[in-house]
């Protein structure tokens, strides 16, 4: 992969939380590159570190309890993890914007929607009030809010869930960021509204040429959206592959099991669902070996003692597993 076109280069990122019970190892060394205009889907279950990893990139985690204990995040020639907070504020919202899962708790209930969209415009782009308001109306129109000239003065509670998510997107896109990070933006929404939002983000991404990181637990949503999919488990990348490759030839036992445990609308109904027995590991005591080993059907003795590195098995396809699922042999 060409390092020059990467807009975001995450290297060996590690994040921990210090709690009363001990240290929670939330992100345990992940590396990936996001290229210009590319969409990466990051898939994982709760506790897989998918949200914590991107919140670490933007340094949005409260410290304490969180602390970034290692790694680098390269963006436009600088390591974001080393920037002073003041400079970091110039990046957040302007260069890298984020939309969150719950639009109700991430919008300020006592400020109008319009003001919240105008704020980044005045702050980052130094627009005057009048100009910013005009632009806010334009943005609301762009994300499909009917009668934006009227709705711009509404408060968040006057918007429905889907409309709030649209307003969040308008806010995030206000400064035309290079990278948009979407953290489960449709999880709280109904399927028909989810379809509207996915459609909207796709259109805007293509129009504005943004790079996109879409975090989700839903393997269905990213199938139609991402160029590349990263599967996370216990704070580690298990598999990273181009979207078609990942769904057609998953090479990690976890990815395979996950895909087989889903009921699918495009298959005959009633097939018994494959289950993944057991539970994800306790992140207070990360196992020494592969974190998936206790639940894995392909497990070998070495899996329990040595953690498999993430290796490239084909151009653009990385897997962290000792076993080659095609042959059943151990990878050297």
């Amino acid at each position, binding site marked *: 992969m060409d390092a020059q076109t990467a807009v975001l280069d995450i290297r060996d990122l590690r994040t921990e939380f210090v709690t009363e019970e001990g240290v929670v190892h939330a992100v345990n060394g992940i590396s990936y590159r996001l290229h210009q205009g590319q969409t990466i889907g990051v898939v994982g279950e709760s506790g897989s570190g998918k949200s914590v990893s991107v919140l670490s990139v933007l340094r949005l985690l409260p410290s304490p309890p969180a602390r970034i204990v290692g790694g680098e995040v390269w963006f436009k020639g600088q390591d974001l993890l080393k920037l002073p907070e003041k400079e970091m504020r110039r990046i957040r919202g302007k260069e890298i914007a984020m939309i969150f899962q719950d639009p109700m708790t991430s919008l300020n209930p006592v400020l109008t929607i319009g003001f919240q969209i105008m704020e980044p415009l005045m702050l980052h782009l130094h627009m005057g009030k009048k100009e910013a308001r005009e632009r806010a109306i334009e943005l609301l129109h762009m994300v499909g809010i009917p009668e934006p000239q009227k709705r711009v003065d509404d408060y968040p509670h006057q918007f429905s869930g889907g409309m709030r998510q649209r307003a969040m997107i308008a806010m995030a896109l206000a400064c035309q960021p290079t990278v948009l990070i979407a953290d489960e933006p449709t999880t709280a929404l109904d399927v028909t509204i989810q379809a*509207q939002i996915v459609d909207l983000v796709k259109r805007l991404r293509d129009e504005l040429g943004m790079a996109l990181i879409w975090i989700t637990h839903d393997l*269905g949503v990213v199938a139609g959206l991402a160029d590349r999919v990263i599967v996370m488990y216990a704070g580690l990348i298990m598999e990273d592959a181009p979207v078609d490759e990942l769904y057609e030839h998953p090479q990690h036992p976890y990815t395979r099991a996950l895909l087989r445990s*889903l009921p699918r609308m495009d298959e005959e109904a009633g097939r018994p669902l494959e289950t993944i027995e057991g539970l994800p590991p306790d992140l207070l005591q990360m196992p020494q070996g592969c974190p998936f080993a206790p639940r894995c059907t392909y497990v070998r003795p070495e899996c329990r003692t040595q953690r498999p590195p993430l290796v490239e098995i084909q151009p653009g396809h990385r897997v962290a597993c000792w076993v080659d699922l095609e042959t059943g042999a151990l990878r050297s």
Partner: protein
Amino acid sequence: MSQTTDATARSQPLLRVENLVKHFPIRRGIIIQRQVGAVRAVDGVSLHIYPGETLGLVGESGCGKSTLGRTIVRLYKPTRGRVLLRVHNGNGRAQEVDLTDLKGKELRRMRRHIQMVFQDPYASLNPRMSVGQIIAEPLLVHGIGSPQEREERVKELLTLVGLRPSHISRYPHEFSGGQRQRIGIARALALQPDFIVLDEPISALDVSIQAQVVNLLQELQQKFRLTYLFIAHDLSMVRHISDRTAVMYLGKIVELADRDELYQHPLHPYTKALLSAVPVPDPKKEREKQREILQGDVPSPVNPPSGCRFRTRCPLAEAVCAEREPELREVAPRHWVACHLI
């Protein structure tokens, strides 16, 4: 039970819901509260559920599917309409009992036959009670068994749902979401009910845990010939588990049919849009798919649109849709639709 009664029992519904209405009053005023309106959560629903089947009920948030489930088990008192349950009395005969107006002792007696599993495994188990106490509570309430017998029964139930009998003295916080849902299922099974309302039993769980719980529910259904009303917003899971499927929109059932029929030949424009909105974990199919995207949001159930409630978002709506409310009609054998244009 003799074969003849068994055969008739199979053709007769276990549960009949007739024109069920549940409105929640909206009150205004501090001391003297006047009713100024009503949330029409369930607004005239009729359906039959047959012994041993799973009826899937899908719909988006606010469509009234959970309220319908809760009104059926009489956690809410219906505003209008009736809920009738067929129960076996001691001598092998079945008789229909009207749950609608039951109170106190009589209602409690009927709850032996009809149980519920809730969505949130964190909120539906009392954190101050041990697992043993939680599962034994229905037995205690109904005065079943001696303390030792109850303990034995609880251990048996724990094994049945895939937990260890030694977990009996632990507390809910020591369990994961999936395990908690198993505890909720064990509690629902304690009284050996005929019918269980499953209200979004897996939507709070992670993908890899959902399959475990669904498989357990199916096993238990076969073992004990249980009848389920499975309420969910996840259309692929409902398709997986149900024999027949009903689709709800703003307090009404808009379509009801056998599972394959509904998913392969949906007739109502809302069902069609809903099914087309579900993403499939296959990038090629997703790219080719012509997705029908509904405009706008679900209207408020306080003030639903006149005529057909879906008309404000329906791509096919005509004048008649605003004038008259479409009735749920059987347009093909066992396929019911409420739409003027079909």
